[in-house]
């Protein structure tokens, strides 16, 4: 029967070639959509390297307050924070922080190698406040203030990129052109770009004690809400009347970050699915028309002893064979991406996209051919055979 199907398909190659290319086109679109989808899904499923729940970011804009005064005011703020039971931890950093629009990218080098990295300036309490994870060594401490060589904490990815399998602990790196840093700790990758961005090389530098800081990070009790936020803001405003101060929930910042990155992705997905939907509709139309055109054939087969089931299976079978031919071609094109490493996308993402695309195509073809085939099977043989 399969041979018979192949012959039917082959002898109708002109018409079937059109269907074949339609399916192929749909598959390639689906492959692209799934690749993007899985690419970002994979990021989404990986740990961020820090916590955002119950974390608040306080944006401090000193305006034209002189440096010494900033220091005094911030000390007063710290004293006030210590008085609130809602505040479990707090820390200071510069503008470069997760979900923010600031980045600081700098080159680092050893004698053998140089690597770029995102640089964060964070104080001694930052690690615990942000719920980060240590791989080796330690985070900054008060005594680092007087260390002869400035300390640095690096992420695992940075350590790997720079030192391969060697432990980065105790190694020296040169920041930019001249500043020497000694690595005292390695932390889990810190995906400050959010859930939909991959790992990066990052380096943390120590913020000096009492250094004026434009960002304050708070770890609050889960019960702390808008009322406490308003109170805190008011207290801060009283301490620093000339400053512009804003409190943002990091959970909210994360949501905004995801939304912003998702919009183009969703747009692309919708366009893709729209294209595929159109092809499916076309396919359905062609098959439906086919049944009409092949009325005589259906009648003959029924007269010669085909059951209704066999008629339906034949039509669905023809489409399945066609879909398989299209998919062979489609998969051949699709596997070139992982084989040739065209983009920086993990092989398993491609494989998942290849399989998901096949699944959708087979389901779609089955759906599109099911009702026309059922219609064909239900055609009354005497009616199908009547001469026009």
């Amino acid at each position, binding site marked *: 029967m399969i041979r018979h199907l192949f012959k*039917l398909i082959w002898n109708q190659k002109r018409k079937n070639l059109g269907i074949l290319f339609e399916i192929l086109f749909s598959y390639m679109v689906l492959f692209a959509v799934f690749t993007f989808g899985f690419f970002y899904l994979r990021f989404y499923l990986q740990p961020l390297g820090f916590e955002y729940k119950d974390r608040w970011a306080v944006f401090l804009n000193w305006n034209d307050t002189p440096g010494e005064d900033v220091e005094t005011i911030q000390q007063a703020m710290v004293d006030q924070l210590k008085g609130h039971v809602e505040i479990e931890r707090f820390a200071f950093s510069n503008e470069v922080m997760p979900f923010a629009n600031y980045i600081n990218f700098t080159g680092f080098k050893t004698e053998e190698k140089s690597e770029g990295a995102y640089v964060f300036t964070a104080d001694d309490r930052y690690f615990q406040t942000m719920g980060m994870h240590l791989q080796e060594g330690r985070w900054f401490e008060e005594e680092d203030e007087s260390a002869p060589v400035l300390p640095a904490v690096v992420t695992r990815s940075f350590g790997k990129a720079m030192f391969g399998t060697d432990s980065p602990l105790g190694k020296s790196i040169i920041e930019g052109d001249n500043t020497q840093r000694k690595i005292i700790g390695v932390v889990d990758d810190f995906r400050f770009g959010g859930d939909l961005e991959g790992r990066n090389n990052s380096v943390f530098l120590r913020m000096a004690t009492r250094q004026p800081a434009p960002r304050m990070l708070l770890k609050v009790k889960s019960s702390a809400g808008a009322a406490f936020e308003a109170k805190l803001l008011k207290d801060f405003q009283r301490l620093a009347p000339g400053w512009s101060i804003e409190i943002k929930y990091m959970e909210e910042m994360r949501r905004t970050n995801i939304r912003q990155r998702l919009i183009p992705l969703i747009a692309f997905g919708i366009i893709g699915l729209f294209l595929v939907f159109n092809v499916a509709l076309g396919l359905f139309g062609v098959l439906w028309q086919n049944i009409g055109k092949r009325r005589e054939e259906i009648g003959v087969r029924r007269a010669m*002893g085909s059951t209704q089931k066999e008629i339906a299976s034949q039509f669905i079978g023809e489409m399945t064979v066609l879909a398989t031919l299209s998919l062979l071609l489609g998969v051949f094109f699709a596997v070139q991406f992982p084989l040739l490493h065209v983009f920086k996308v993990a092989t398993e993402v491609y494989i998942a996209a290849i399989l998901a695309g096949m699944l959708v195509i087979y389901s779609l073809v089955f759906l599109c051919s099911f009702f026309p085939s059922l219609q064909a099977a239900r055609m009354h043989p*005497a009616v199908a055979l009547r001469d026009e």
Partner: protein
Amino acid sequence: MIALQNVNKVYQTKSIETVALNRINLEVAGGEFLAIMGPSGCGKSTLLNIMGLLDEPTDGAVSINASDLKGYSDKQLARFRNKHIGFVFQSYHLINDLQVMDNVEIPLLYRRVSGKERRQLAAEALSRVGLRNRMEHFPTQLSGGQCQRVAIARAIVGQPSIILADEPTGNLDSVMGAEIMEILLQLNQENGTTIVMVTHDETMARQAHRIVRLFDGSQVM
């Protein structure tokens, strides 16, 4: 062999009711060559379709080879047709997308017959109608008479005991029509195949053992 008892067929469309067959009682004996005649629209094709299990009577009973076919499922009817009945139609009804060979094989596809055996049986059937050398042709490359011979090969490839032919020579000139008639007579005489043939041609009908005449759905002779 074929027995119709009080067979009525009524076509019900929205507003009109057409009585295509009116209380037909008919028996066709095994090995008989029966011709059915009658004016256009009198119900000949309807009668043949009912005999061939392609259509069901509105009421009345049909039995073939002593099997009462009432209550048969679609699958049982299909298998029964496949095994016992061969069809030949006025307009051949060949599948144009398939070569002659593959057209002839079709009845065997619905039995469990191996590809090799199918080839062989199809070739034999085509030899019987003198078209062994046209196996690779497509129906569109054949004359009308040749097409009808292919259709006959397809009807006999499964060696059915009954052949139902609905105006098999209706589209052919007299020479080709006579050729087809010759083949059918030969099948009837040499293989004992029961043949029921609808025709408008009096001289052909006279070559059959018996003629049944229909008029407006009723048997008149």
